[in-house]
């Protein structure tokens, strides 16, 4: 699905990603963990094409295409979705209008027919059930006045509507209460298929009880320093990142 090779990226001249290598196959779930400021969100933003980050080296192949050459909206059309760590508010634009516009652009790019308002609304309501969101959110302005948890849930709703091939969830679990965490996770699991893949960025092993990863990676200081199975997350939870730093020092 996606192959990241020796990816280096900087922001304002400061190098944040220092050679990331990561391959995710269709049907897989990968978790990325790591201390604050290690570059997890940067990786997510670079994959989505945020203009503030400059890629200085490396390449990313997504479904056989060179992802880094594509405009952000073209990446979205190709099936890349990012659930933002900090979802953005768009005053005056209703959630449904926004999502319908996005979905129809994506459909158009694939040569599919656009959905009319009736068809879209019907579909939206179905998807809202998956994340147990109140229908009142249909007409509220995008993320405006939403609580932290509601924003995160709204991200998953968007993912459910847009049905991406590769979903990158950046700390979607932070700010969620226990019930919401279960709902959101089960939403993610329901959308899982052998044809799509998910990268979850998280600080907490707790989420991985619900969304079970195939591989866990540890990102420290712009590099993936360790990868392993689900057990790695437990180890981190128990010992923090120090033991990895120690391992790194020993090997250095």
């Amino acid at each position, binding site marked *: 699905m996606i192959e990241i090779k020796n990816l280096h990226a900087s922001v304002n001249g400061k190098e944040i990603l220092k050679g990331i290598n990561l391959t995710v196959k269709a049907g897989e779930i990968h978790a990325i963990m790591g201390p604050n400021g290690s570059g997890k969100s940067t990786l997510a933003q670079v994959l989505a*094409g945020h203009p503030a980050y400059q890629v200085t080296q490396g390449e990313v192949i997504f479904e056989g295409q060179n992802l880094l050459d594509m405009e952000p*909206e073209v990446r979205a059309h190709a099936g890349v979705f990012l659930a933002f760590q900090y979802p953005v508010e768009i005053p*005056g*634009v209703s959630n449904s209008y926004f999502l319908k516009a996005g979905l129809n*652009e994506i459909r158009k790019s694939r040569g599919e027919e656009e959905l009319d308002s009736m068809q879209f609304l019907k579909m939206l309501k179905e998807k809202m059930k998956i994340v147990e969101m109140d229908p009142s959110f249909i007409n509220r*302005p995008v993320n405006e006045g939403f609580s932290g948890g509601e924003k995160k849930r709204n991200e998953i709703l968007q993912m459910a509507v847009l049905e991406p091939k590769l979903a990158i969830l950046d700390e979607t679990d932070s700010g969620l209460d226990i019930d919401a965490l279960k709902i959101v996770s089960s939403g993610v699991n329901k959308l899982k298929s052998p044809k799509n893949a998910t990268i979850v960025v998280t600080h907490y092993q707790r989420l991985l009880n619900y969304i079970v990863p195939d591989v866990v990676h540890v990102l420290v200081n712009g590099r993936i320093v360790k990868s392993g199975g689900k057990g790695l997350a437990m180890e981190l939870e128990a010992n923090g990142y120090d033991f990895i730093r120690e391992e790194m020092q020993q090997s250095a």
Partner: protein
Amino acid sequence: MSETIEELVSQEYKYGFTTNIETDTIPPGLNEDVVRIISKKKNEPEWLTDWRLKAFRLWKTMEEPRWPNLQYAKIDYQSISYYSAPKEMKKYNSLDEVDPILLETYAKLGISLTEQKRLSGVAVDAVFDSVSVATTFKETLREKGIIFCSFSEAVQEHPDLVKKYLGSVVPYGDNYFAALNSAVFSDGSFCFIPRGVRCPMELSTYFRINASNTGQFERTLIVAEEGAYVSYLEGCTAPMRDENQLHAAVVELIALDNAEVKYSTVQNWYAGDKNGKGGIYNFVTKRGKCLGENSKISWTQVETGSAITWKYPSVILQGDNSIGEFYSVAVVNNRQDADTGTKMLHIGKNTRSTIVSKGISAGRGNNTYRGLVNIGKHATNSRNYTQCDSMLIGNQCSANTFPYIEVKNSSSSVEHEASTSKIGEDQIFYCKQRGINTENAISMIINGFAKEVFKNLPMEFAVEAQKLLGISLEGSVG
């Protein structure tokens, strides 16, 4: 990214063509004779000629206001021609007699003057340079007792009504530009909705400046008698020319007991080119008077054009329980300057006013909101709510807000909210991540920002206005 923002804001003006038609234009210059000539050409009664002359004499003693936050080259009032009309302008008995070139001009602007073809149910008065060339649906309206005609025609056929109301809201000496207009006004629209009648269709005037070196000075007078209702739309365009052209209009609205007047404008005069060359200087006095109890006047404006805009549609809330509203979206781009806002003058008891102003600045545009809320001593239990939001696109534009508030009794209240935001790279990126391209993202964000104003426009007009907003900002973000 700001580079791309800048690119998006510059898109061509598509109404910039010129119509080649023979005109009857008086030479540039302004003096009492010119005022007399205009009055004579229009075959006006003596009282009106005198009124014009009084205005002219007063104007000569006045000074052009310097307080607005606007920068423009000094206007040479002697270099402007004060009257221009397509030649051979007679009274047309039917639209078939109107010069096909004129009909074609309006068709190009998207306005069909051929009544049969107009399914939308909007009656139109088309003003070309100094004169009204056609008014549609007149007969249908006349059956209800509604008068909708050009101002010149009203002077001939309904002189008493004109005499009674002309200058009753905006006196000829009100301000510099109103005095100029009163002296040299050429044409405009007149509407009269008699007692108890709800006007069955939107009334609309379309103003077009065509001739070069001319000013356009139109006058609109709308009177709604007791219990009457009317919704009036105004649209405007002008050819692209390198020199600036002056537009100084006066609009007066009068609402008697329980009457309601809704006045909507989509102003798209030529704004000049990227470097600020050419464009219309728009100095307009618009004011409504809620003369009767429970009357209501609301202004909705979408201002995207003109090089310079100076405009404060206001409401005098004289009748008890009367309501005044002002909803505005003003967009400036490139080198445009706008100083616009409103005045709400509360005189009657329990009067209420609402002001919603949305200013959008892009390019090197400079957008100023200037508003006055005055609640008088006797206007007990009155209320005003003001919301003033500014949005900036790019780093070279500016927005200013000057709200003036005067409350002279203790039972009234005034609420003011203001905000300034920048269209964010993050907002655009968020939209793009969901598959929406930059242009559509900006248009979506801007329309969301201006939504409260658009929802007050008649349906068709709202769609038009949203498109216009998208166009006038294209090239500003990316």
